[in-house]
């Protein structure tokens, strides 16, 4: 089966944020790379078919139909089901999963993966994010520290283009930023009042986001045009995605081969050499199986799917699959829990409005269990929010129907402000995913079963997440403040991670400090699966940094003949 055409220096499985980075780094360092994507191809700009559409261009004004809700029983649980991004989230009929407990799994099965759909908020983990497990006796210790990753954060920020301010906060380390987006007048005033009310211990800062405020001509990317339609694909290339950023660079090297419609079913393991020799691919269109071989393999199929591949690999050696000797494979599922916060009304500023639509809002960095603060739970949370004037969607209680109502809705309403929390979820051995022996997908492959729940630490934290948001706004003089603590189910954060974690001991972790599978050192996992803890900040920037670092290590090790 294996021919010269099927051999590469490296195989990268998955083309999302981390897979794109792996492909870029490895090809730039001279390796011949095969990038495998299970879904269809999406070409930059050309295939962003809805990018310039507005509500009136869709048959149902961008709302889901009942038919769509029937066909997508998981997607309909939250915002992903709509007309504008239809087809950009994985099809649940073809690719089902089972839920021992409710788990909302939102997947992007196409070139670029969720890099096309992501929220783009880009924050560094801080020093304590890497030491908290050790200090608190939670799970296992990270095998790396902030200092190990700091230069790689610098590196990926410069390339990806992160816009933000250097705010000088220990809790949220500064990076290499393009000029920040701008807070509006109300947000600026609230920020000033917060600083005063909390003596500097709480902050409202501008969100740091992977949208560029200055052009990057070397990448053919134009700065943000303030349309706020990022999730439809940006014709200006203004936000970081595989298509806008990493893929073109990798293609330019001449070292990259891209193969869409390629479902990797297992890593091929050579038990004598204790190394992987390649991967088995099921062509999702022809149903034919093909083998590809390589010196090294990067698994970047998204946390759960990289784990799924490992579970299906080397099962003749380990029943639970490659990496299962640790008893950590598929365990320690984490997400960021959200859907809790507050909103209210800001009086005045009626002679001011906003022009343009920013791709970010404000950020409130973690303040709980930080500095001198001590709570009855571990870790903390941050908030993301924005202020704006109300539009026609508001309720004008005092007006009934007719010309007066129409005139009122035609003008902007009061300023309102709101923010929602993102809380750290602790790793738990019994929060797990596993292969469901009874259910198969469209291609006859076993599917994942989800058994994940919120534990006491998260539930205690959520009380603060609501109360603190209310207190925060009231301290800033916001009126009619309402807290909310809505229905969050694990997965809704779309930050699933932890199921093949890094660690210091092969008995309790799947990966070492360089993201190598302990039991197959030429296999690297650098997507969300590798995370030892979750922090409360959005994780993608950390995946980028870990991927660039691991790719560098892999190439150096290859040169030394160590893989």
């Amino acid at each position, binding site marked *: 089966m294996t021919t010269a055409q099927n051999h590469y220096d490296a195989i990268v499985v998955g083309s999302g944020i981390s897979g794109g980075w792996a492909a870029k780094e490895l090809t730039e360092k001279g390796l011949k790379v095969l990038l495998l994507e299970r879904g269809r191809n999406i070409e930059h700009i050309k295939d962003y078919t809805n990018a310039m559409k507005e509500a009136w261009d869709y048959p149902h004004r961008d709302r889901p139909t009942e038919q769509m809700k029937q066909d997508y029983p998981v997607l309909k649980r939250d915002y992903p089901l709509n007309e504008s991004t239809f087809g950009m989230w994985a099809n649940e009929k073809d690719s089902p999963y089972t839920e021992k407990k409710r788990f909302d799994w939102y997947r992007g099965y196409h070139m670029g993966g969720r890099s096309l759909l992501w929220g783009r908020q880009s924050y560094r983990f801080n020093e304590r994010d890497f030491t908290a497990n050790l200090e608190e006796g939670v799970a296992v210790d990270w095998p790396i520290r902030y200092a190990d990753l700091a230069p790689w954060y610098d590196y990926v920020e410069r390339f990806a283009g992160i816009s933000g301010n250097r705010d000088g906060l220990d809790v949220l380390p500064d990076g290499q930023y393009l000029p920040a987006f701008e807070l509006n007048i109300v947000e600026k005033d609230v920020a000033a009042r917060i600083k005063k009310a909390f003596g500097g211990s709480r902050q409202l800062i501008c969100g740091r986001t992977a949208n560029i405020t200055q052009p990057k001509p070397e990448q053919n990317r134009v700065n943000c045009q303030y349309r706020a339609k990022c999730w439809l694909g940006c014709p200006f290339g203004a936000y970081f995605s595989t298509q806008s950023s990493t893929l073109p660079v990798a293609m330019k090297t001449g070292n990259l081969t891209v193969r869409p419609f390629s479902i990797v079913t297992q890593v091929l393991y050579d038990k004598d050499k204790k190394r992987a020799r390649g991967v088995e691919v099921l062509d999702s269109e022809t149903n034919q199986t093909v083998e590809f071989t390589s010196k090294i393999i990067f698994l970047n199929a998204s946390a759960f799917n990289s784990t799924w591949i490992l579970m299906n690999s080397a099962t003749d050696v380990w029943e639970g699959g490659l990496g299962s000797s640790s008893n950590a494979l598929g365990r320690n599922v984490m997400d960021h829990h959200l859907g809790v916060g507050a909103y209210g009304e800001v009086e005045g500023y009626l002679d001011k*409005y906003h*022009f343009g639509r920013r791709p970010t809002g404000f950020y409130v960095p973690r303040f709980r269990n930080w500095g001198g603060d001590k709570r009855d739970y571990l870790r903390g949370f941050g908030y993301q929010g924005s202020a704006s004037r109300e539009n*026609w969607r508001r309720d004008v209680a005092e007006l009934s129907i007719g010309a007066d109502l*129409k005139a009122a809705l035609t003008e902007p309403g009061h300023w309102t402000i*709101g923010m*929602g929390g993102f809380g750290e979820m602790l790793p738990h051995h019994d929060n797990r995913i596993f292969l469901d022996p009874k259910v198969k997908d469209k291609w006859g492959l076993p599917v994942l079963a989800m058994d994940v729940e919120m534990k006491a630490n998260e539930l205690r934290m959520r009380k603060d997440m609501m109360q603190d948001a209310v207190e925060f706004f009231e301290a800033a003089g916001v009126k009619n403040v309402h807290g*909310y603590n809505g229905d969050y189910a694990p997965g809704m954060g779309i930050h699933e991670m932890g199921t093949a974690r890094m660690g210091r001991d092969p008995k309790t972790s799947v990966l070492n400090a360089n993201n190598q599978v302990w039991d197959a050192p030429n296999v690297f996992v650098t997507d969300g699966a590798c995370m030892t803890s979750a922090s409360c900040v959005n994780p993608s920037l950390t995946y980028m940094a870990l991927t660039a670092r691991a790719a560098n290590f892999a190439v150096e090790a290859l040169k030394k003949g160590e893989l």
Partner: protein
Amino acid sequence: MERRDLLKMIAAATGLAFVGGEAWAAGVKTTSASKALFGAGDIMLLDEIAETILPRTETPGAKDAACGAQMAVMVQDCYDAKQQALFVAGLAALQASCKQQYQRDFLQLTAAERTALLTQLDKDASARNAAIASNDSTNVSNRKGDASIEPHYFTLLKQLSIFVFFTSKVGATEVLRYVAVPGRYDGAMPYKKGDKAWAT
């Protein structure tokens, strides 16, 4: 802010969330998806109801934006069976009120009579919605799946009229202000009373 939180905030802030939205969709399966609910006469009726709610003034009104036809599409395709039943029964109830008060069909009423009738229905709807809201003040999620919570049918008519009007090209570009590619941000843009709101 993440879109999901924004949507939830909108739902919470508008009291009753938009029909077809996340808040009170109770998971009832559509049973008559293929059966056309509305004919040409219904669309004329919907047009005139929407026009009474959002009339042409110095700017275009609901009929200019072809709201009736779009409302029919939304109810047909985006409402579940329970919502559809409430909407269809609502139109019949509205006509029955007309007959009772004016001995005529809604389409035969004068503009003033239409306004008077719908103003009364809006009052009835507000009273009912206030009663619902007082049972549950802030937590939108608690409303999910509660079969006893059914808004007044006029709330559906009014919200759907507003939704299809301001998401129409006419409503967005000729009644509100629309800029496809702003190109910059100004977070303290001068505003004076009477200036239009942004459509998007």
